[in-house]
């Protein structure tokens, strides 16, 4: 079984400030980890994912995330946000092999960027 906890339902921030969106997961097997973004009135699109290798993963629009196996976390960061980053962000986890090919999504974090 696997689960994802996004620790903040809403994160307000001023434009050009740094931001971190937190994600913790649990799984009985090794995992793949994902962050998806949903802009208003749209579907989700992939921001970045961790499959293997370097624990620091860079994605689109200047976002990056770090896989921390000991803390079972995959926090998303951006050093300077823009108004256009206002969106819903979803963390997801899927087990590597062993049966389930279906990722589990967190409940989402709403990033609100103020001018």
């Amino acid at each position, binding site marked *: 079984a696997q689960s994802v906890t996004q620790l903040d339902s809403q994160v307000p921030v001023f434009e050009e400030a740094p931001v971190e969106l937190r994600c913790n997961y649990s799984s009985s097997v090794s995992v*793949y980890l994902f962050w998806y973004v949903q802009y208003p009135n749209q*579907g989700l699109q992939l921001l970045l*994912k961790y499959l293997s290798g370097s624990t620091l993963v860079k994605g689109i629009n200047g976002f990056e995330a770090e896989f921390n196996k000991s803390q079972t976390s995959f926090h998303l960061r951006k050093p300077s946000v823009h108004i256009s980053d206002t969106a819903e962000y979803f963390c997801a986890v*899927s087990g590597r092999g062993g049966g389930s090919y279906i990722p589990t*999504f967190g409940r*989402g974090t709403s990033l609100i960027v103020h001018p």
Partner: protein
Amino acid sequence: DVKVTQSSRYLVKRTGEKVFLECVQDMDHENMFWYRQDPGLGLRLIYFSYDVKMKEKGDIPEGYSVSREKKERFSLILESASTNQTSMYLCASSLAGSSGNTIYFGEGSWLTVV
């Protein structure tokens, strides 16, 4: 670019009506999904299909059924719509072979049941 197309963006239906939500993907993906998205609850999987005519129940299949007669098309059916099925429905697809493959989403269908 991968495209997942949901035929209806906004629907209003009456309680008890049979509702069809259609989804087509153009990338020859084996896997297709239907999710329901509600505020504060995130995405919940309704049904999953890994091949034509194959389906598996997700976390909340009650009140829904699905059909996959062709590889590119995955339909969600509400046999008798109820007001608690008012929600945003997201269709998605992915390649088979690895749970690390990216899932591609459609733009969503907003369903209101009155």
